[in-house]
């Protein structure tokens, strides 16, 4: 996330992983004669943790995994902080998920050293699990702002694993207030995440809430770009696509740097009928806009059939761009000649059929390995 750190002049991204809690592995030999006299049976907390660590390691060395896990579980009940300290030094013990889940919720709330503790869990899955288990008991109970301030410091492996629960709950139950809060954060991507959740619960409010992102808000333009994609993916209709494109201004349908991408985002989630309607709508646009929009009709993950593609090609007003589209489509359809040998016949113009034949000849003359 260093790119974000560069962009954002805010405390929110002043991640603080101040103190390493992992003690060095090198063991200093204990000179028994130099130890002060201690009352029998009373160890300090640190010494107790250290002795638990040694006990667990000894069990692991003897292959007694279940016993080791039990010792840790017990430690987790008595001293959740110590538990996580040890966990950082004991990677690879299987089946720790339940203990982590239970124990994380017991940690003291909202303290820097707890943030550091959690962030030092080296196993990615367990770290994400610990964070989300730490936060989820507070969602809907403590103020959103407070939970956010704690969770934003998480060193996540999977983005939003710490705060995902908060965003979901807020988007569903408190969308106006939570968006207003995010708008004060001078941040990027948080609003995008919020809209991802919003589209699941209240898609009909998207356009209205989009307008509430203040002009000139820190990170606002960045987020709005991505939110446009979120909106068309959630509602891939021609009508919504048009509305979203026009969020960029009255000539929003012309923007060569983005329209193709937004069309393909819509197509990636559209039903066959919606795809047809989108293509029809594009066909009503002025030539420059139309030819730029069409770039998005070829869904990259799922190459469209020759028949469908032919309709897309027929919508262009530029033969040059038709040929480019054909080149791109063929790159994603390398086995077309085997799958559908008559595909060339389905191309809409003679010019394109000839172009396709030329390409096929070239491919056959120098087959790629």
């Amino acid at each position, binding site marked *: 996330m*260093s790119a974000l*750190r*560069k*962009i954002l*002049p*805010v*405390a929110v*991204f*002043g*991640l*603080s*992983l*101040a103190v*390493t809690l*992992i003690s060095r*592995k090198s063991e200093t030999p204990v000179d028994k004669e130099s130890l002060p006299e201690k009352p029998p049976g009373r160890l300090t907390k640190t010494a107790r943790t250290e002795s638990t660590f040694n006990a*667990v*390691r000894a069990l*692991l*060395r*003897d*292959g007694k*995994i279940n016993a080791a896990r039990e010792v840790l579980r017990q430690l987790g009940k008595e001293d959740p902080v110590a538990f996580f300290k040890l966990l950082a030094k*004991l*990677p*690879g013990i*299987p089946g720790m998920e339940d203990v982590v889940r239970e124990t994380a919720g017991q940690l003291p709330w909202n303290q820097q050293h707890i943030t550091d503790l959690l*962030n030092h869990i*080296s196993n990615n899955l367990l770290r994400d699990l610990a964070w989300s288990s730490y936060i989820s008991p507070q969602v809907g109970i403590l103020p959103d702002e407070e939970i956010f301030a704690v969770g934003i410091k998480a*060193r996540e492996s999977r983005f939003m694993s710490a705060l995902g629960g908060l965003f979901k709950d807020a988007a569903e139950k408190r969308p106006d207030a939570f968006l207003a809060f995010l708008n004060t954060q001078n941040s*990027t991507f948080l609003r995008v995440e919020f809209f991802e959740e919003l589209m699941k619960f209240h898609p009909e409010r998207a356009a209205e809430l989009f307008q509430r992102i*203040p*002009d*000139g808000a*820190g*990170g606002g*333009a*960045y987020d*709005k*770009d991505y939110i446009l994609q979120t909106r068309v993916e959630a509602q891939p209709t021609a009508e919504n696509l048009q509305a979203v494109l026009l*969020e*960029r201004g009255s*000539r929003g349908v*012309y*923007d*060569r*740097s*983005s329209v193709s991408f937004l069309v393909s985002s819509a197509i990636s989630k559209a039903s066959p009928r919606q795809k047809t309607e989108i293509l029809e709508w594009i066909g009503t646009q002025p*030539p*420059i806009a139309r*030819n*730029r929009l069409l770039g998005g009709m070829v869904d990259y993950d799922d190459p469209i059939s020759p028949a469908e593609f032919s309709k897309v090609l027929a919508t*262009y*007003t*530029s*033969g*040059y*761009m*038709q040929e480019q589209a054909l080149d791109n489509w063929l790159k994603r359809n390398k086995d077309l000649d085997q799958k559908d040998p008559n595909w060339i016949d389905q191309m809409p*113009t003679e010019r394109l059929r000839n172009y396709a034949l030329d390409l096929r000849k070239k491919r056959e003359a120098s087959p790629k390995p």
Partner: protein
Amino acid sequence: MGMLLTAEPGNPSPAQIAPLPPTGKAETMLPDDLAIVKIAAMAGRSTEAREKIRELLATDAKDAEIAEWLALVLFSDPAWLDRFILTVPEDRRIALARLAILKLGNLTPDSAWELIRSSPYARLAARSDVEIERRKGIQILGHCMSSDLTAETILDPSLQFSDKDIARTLRSTRGDGNARRILDEWRGGRWKGEPPEFVRDSWTQLWYADKDGRQDLEKSVPTELSGYVDQFKALNEQSSQADAKPVGTVPGVEELSALGPGELMEIFENQRTSGTRIPLETITQLPANLRKVGIENYFQQNDSFHPDMARQCVEHLGQLDLTHSEQQSLLENAATSSWVKQGDYQTALDWSARMPDAKGRAEVEERILTELAQQDPQTAFDHADAMPVGTLRDKIKRIATEALP
């Protein structure tokens, strides 16, 4: 490493000089379960694991499998690598060691750096460009940047990492421990001149993480570097104050003049992501080095939701005292913006026609018309009819004709 237990002073008993087994005491049998053996190895009992590794080597197992076991042993005994690697065929050593580093880092990032510190062979392997899981060179430790040992290790002069590897690593470190180490190094005189971005980033990180420590942070800087610190602080303070200002407030001449070129580019990026712009007027009033960089990069502030930026720029040009070269650059970028983002070729051509230098003007005009011919051949063809007779008109007509469907 063995312990010398002297039976009599100065007269060690030979039998006790030999190295003890790793745990130094008799071991119970482990269940015949590889998963358990692995965990035991990580906990410091590696006899079985070492045996397994020898077995795998002898039966020509894949590197991935060997490296997994190797990492488990090295977790508790990093120094073993240099002895073990001698038993591996020479042509496999580097790849195997690199894979082991990767897997060790997956266990804990700290342990990977411990290995680098303890093992000359690990260092050799870490520098090598043998590609392992799409990682070359020092990238093999790319997943270990959160370890507080990162900066310390890579900067340790006795380990002799190259400046390139050092810079590459420091750009990715996380955490305050690493940030402090980077600043220590900078204060000690490394990286003379304009500080690398990771120095500024480290400063900023600590600035925000430890408000109470800010004075100490500043005091620790030697006088020859205080100019740079002033630039960092100017950026940080402006950022903090920006939060308190009304939304959309843009920094002014005085604030911006305190920055260096690198910081100005960060401000531009902030503007773009926020949907605001430093006005041209402001940029022309900045010190010469900032003005130059500001004008060349003015349109990097161009966000998607203010399509009027280019027009506002062009309409303002006459009121500002700009050099020809500055006008040229701004008009070219404005024309491009109009064509690309608005699809408005006519405005683009109008603006490019105002470019002072004829050669540059002709290039931009030709580029826009060519693209128009490709993207809307009919319109280009019609437009060409109204063009003055000449090679450009012929070219555009030709391209447009060919581009018709």
